[in-house]
C-alpha cells in the first residue's frame, strides 16, 4: 500500500481538482475546466469520475461503484478494486451504507442523503455539442444564456417521432441558469437530480468538472404542450415486483423469452430480502438453490 499516494493522485493534483469542485459547486451547472491527469485506465472507462472520487475520498469513506446500476460489471468492479488498492477505503454494494458513490449511467433508486456524494462519469459534458460543434461558440452561448438551440433539438424530436425521443442525457436547466448534460443517465432519473446529496460530474477526456449542490433546482427542458416525462419500461420487476424502479430488459433464451429486472441491483436485492417477490422470483431462487 505504501507504493501509492492515498487514492493514487498526488496531493497537489487533488488540491487542484478540489478547487475545481468547489468552483463547480459555487456555480451550479457551469463546466469548470481542470487539468485532467493520465489515469491507469483508458478514456471512456471513467477517468473523470475516478479523479473526482480520488479528490473527495477520505480514509473513513465507504465507497460504492455502479455501472448501469449494477455493482458487479467489469467497469464497476475494476474501479472499486482500484480504490481498495490505492486508498484502502472500505467498499460496499449497499447504497444506504455508502458515503461516496461513483456511477456510470444511473442514479440509485433509493433516495440519497445529505451525508453522501454521488460522482458521475461523464463522456461528453457539453449539452450543446451536437447542435453546435464549435467550442468557442458553445462557451459563448452558455455565457449569454442562448439556449434556443436545445429546444430546436427537442422540436426535431417531436417533429420526427411525435414525442421527445431523447431518452438519456436529457438536457436540464440548473437553478434557472446553466443548461447541463446530466451524463447519459436515463431521463427516468432526471427528477432524482434534485437531491440531498452532493452530485459531482467528471469528464476526464474533456477536462471538465461540474456539480449540483444539494437541493438545487434542476428542470428538465420541454415544451408546454409536450411536457417532460420520466418514462420507463411499462412493466414491473420480474424479481422483486417493483413497479416504480428503472428496468433492464433481459433476453433469457433463444425463443424470444425475456424478463424485466431492476437495473439497480442493490435496490432489487434489498427488496427481495424484505420479502418482495416478482413473477419469476421463485424459479430464480430455485435455480440458485
Amino acid at each position, binding site marked *: 500500500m505504501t507504493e501509492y499516494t492515498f487514492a493514487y493522485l498526488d496531493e497537489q493534483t487533488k488540491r487542484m481538482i478540489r478547487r475545481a469542485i468547489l468552483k463547480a459547486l459555487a456555480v451550479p451547472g457551469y463546466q469548470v475546466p481542470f487539468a485532467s491527469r493520465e489515469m491507469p485506465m483508458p478514456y471512456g472507462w471513467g477517468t473523470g469520475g475516478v479523479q473526482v472520487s480520488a479528490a473527495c475520498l477520505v480514509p473513513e469513506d465507504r465507497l460504492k461503484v455502479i455501472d448501469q446500476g449494477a455493482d458487479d460489471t467489469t467497469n464497476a468492479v475494476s474501479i472499486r478494486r482500484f480504490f481498495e488498492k490505492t486508498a484502502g477505503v472500505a467498499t460496499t454494494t449497499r447504497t444506504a451504507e455508502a458515503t461516496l458513490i461513483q456511477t456510470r449511467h444511473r442514479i440509485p433508486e433509493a433516495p440519497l442523503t445529505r451525508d453522501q456524494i454521488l460522482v458521475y462519469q461523464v463522456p461528453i459534458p457539453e449539452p450543446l455539442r451536437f447542435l453546435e460543434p464549435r467550442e468557442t461558440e458553445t462557451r459563448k452561448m452558455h455565457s449569454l444564456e442562448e439556449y434556443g*438551440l436545445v429546444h430546436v433539438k427537442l422540436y*426535431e424530436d417531436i417533429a420526427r417521432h411525435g414525442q421527445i425521443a431523447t431518452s438519456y442525457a436529457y438536457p436540464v436547466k440548473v437553478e434557472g441558469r446553466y443548461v447541463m448534460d446530466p451524463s447519459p443517465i436515463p431521463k427516468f432519473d432526471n427528477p432524482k437530480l434534485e437531491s440531498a446529496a452532493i452530485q459531482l460530474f467528471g469528464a476526464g477526456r474533456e477536462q471538465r468538472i461540474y456539480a449540483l449542490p444539494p437541493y438545487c433546482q434542476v428542470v428538465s427542458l420541454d415544451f*408546454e404542450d409536450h411536457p417532460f416525462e420520466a418514462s420507463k419500461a411499462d412493466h414491473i420487476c420480474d424479481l422483486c415486483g417493483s413497479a416504480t424502479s428503472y428496468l433492464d430488459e433481459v433476453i433469457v433464451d433463444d425463443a424470444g423469452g425475456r424478463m424485466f429486472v431492476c437495473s439497480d441491483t442493490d435496490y432489487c436485492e434489498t427488496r427481495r430480502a424484505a420479502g418482495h417477490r416478482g413473477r419469476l422470483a421463485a424459479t430464480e431462487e430455485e435455480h440458485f438453490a
Partner: protein
Amino acid sequence: MTPLLQVRDLTKHYGARIGCADVSFDLYPGEVMGIVGESGSGKSTLLGCLAGHLEADRGQVLFDTRSDGPRDMRAMSEPERRMLSRTDLAFVHQNPRDGLRMGVSAGGNVGERLMAVGARHYGGIRAQALDWLSRVEIAEDRIDDRPSAFSGGMQQRLQIARNLVTGPRLVFMDEPTGGLDVSVQARLLDLLRGLVREMGLSAVIVTHDLAVVRLLADRLMVMKSGHVVEAGLTDQVLDDPQHGYTQLLVSSVLQV
C-alpha cells in the same frame, strides 16, 4: 421621424488595404437601400460592419432600439448585440447554406429564432413555421424535410422565412438573388417586395445586379474602392448617374 439606422464615418481597413471608408447614411423605417459596386468595391465589408459580423475600425452605427432609442451598435455589449440580432435584425446570406442549419428540418430552421426568444409551445411554434413556409411558397408537407433536400430557390426562401419569423425591423441581404436562375430570381424578388411592404421592413441589399436594385430598392449607394461615390434615389442614380464610375456601371449593363 427618427431614422432606423444612422451610419456615421464607418471605416474598416484590412491592414493597409481599405475595406470601406467614411461611409455615412440614414435609413428610415420602411426604406430599402441598395448598395452596388463591382467585386472588391467594399460593399460586402460595409454590410458585414453594419450587421456586426465584422469589427469596424471607427465610426458609428446607430440603431433606433425599441426601448432606448438610437444606440451605437458598436458600443453595445455582446449580449445586447446578439439579442438585437435575434429580434430586430435579420441577415440573408447569398449562400443559403451559410444561413440555414442544414441538419435541421425546415420547421426547426424557422422555429429556431422563436425558440431563441423564448417560445416554448410546440404547437404554436409549428403553426408559425407552417404559416411562414406558406408565405414563402414552400408546401406544408415539406416542413419536416431537411433543407439539403430543397432546391436552391427553396433554400433561399426558407432562409428568408427563418429570418423574418420574429418580425425584425431591419434586414441585411447579401446578394439574395445571386446564384439563382432568372425565373427563380423573379419569384424571390416578388416575394421580398411583398414582405417588405406588408411588414414595413427596412432593408439594406448588397448586389451587383442593377435590375434587382431597380425593382427592390428605394435608394441606392454606389461604391468603388471602399468609398461611396454616389447616392440617391435608385431610379435617379441609374437614369441620371453623376459619377463617372456609375455612368460606366450603368452603360455596361446589357439591355434586355
